[in-house]
């Protein structure tokens, strides 16, 4: 009995409050506009999108493993390639040194 009295009072209060406070004009439209603006600015931030993309990319174990293998593959091939160039350069320099140790004219005309 007491509970139903409370319900009645609550409903009455709600009705009164609705009547008293009126929403500003184009309230709903403005709310949707603000949501759209917030979404746009979030997407425009590159760090956010990159982080989100990375998080999505490494979300599964297979993708995460693929990511690590890809990075490793690229760096190992780069290391080998750069090492090959350095090695060829050193080889050429040492061969010139040997040639100059036999023929001093080569040392003077390098």
């Amino acid at each position, binding site marked *: 009995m007491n509970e139903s009295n409370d319900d009645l009072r609550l409903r009455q209060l709600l009705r009164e409050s609705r009547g008293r406070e009126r929403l500003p004009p184009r309230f709903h439209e403005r709310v949707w506009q603000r949501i759209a603006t917030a979404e746009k600015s979030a997407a425009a931030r590159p760090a956010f999108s990159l982080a989100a993309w990375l998080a999505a990319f490494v979300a599964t174990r297979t993708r995460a493993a693929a990511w690590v293998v890809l990075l490793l593959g690229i760096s190992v091939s780069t*290391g080998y390639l750069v090492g090959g160039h350095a090695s060829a350069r050193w080889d050429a320099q040492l061969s010139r040194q040997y040639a100059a140790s036999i023929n001093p004219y080569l040392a003077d005309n390098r």
Partner: protein
Amino acid sequence: MKRALIILTLGVVLSVVGGGAAYVHRTAPERAMACCKNPEMAWLQHEFQMTDDQLARVQTLHAGYQAGCREMCRRIQATNDLVRAEFIAPDADTLKMQRLLADAANLRGECQWHMTEYCLAVSREMSPAQGKRYLQWVCDRVLTMPGNAAMPNPSESGHGN
């Protein structure tokens, strides 16, 4: 997000280590040669696949050749100085100059002959196939003596020590 960062960091760290290891592995022979006492001889051994015994014999030949070569360079320089002095002298003796130039040419010929002898001796210390490769390499890169080149100074030339 945290997991993504951990995987990304792991991937980057692994790739840096992997790339570095690949570089170190690829350049290992050259770095070992560069640390040697005689890098050019280490290069010769590596390039023409010589054994340690072969290298030891070639090093003996090389040391002997360099001593002779230094002396030859000194003589060429001395003759060259005489030619220059005679050339700019007010009363230049053309006959004397002719003789000096002939001496200089003979010395250069002698020098080239010593070089050729040394190269042939080195090639004989190698395996036949490598010896042939060595002679081809020497022909292309070493047995050239430009006619208009300045005479080498024994102290500045490529005698190493």
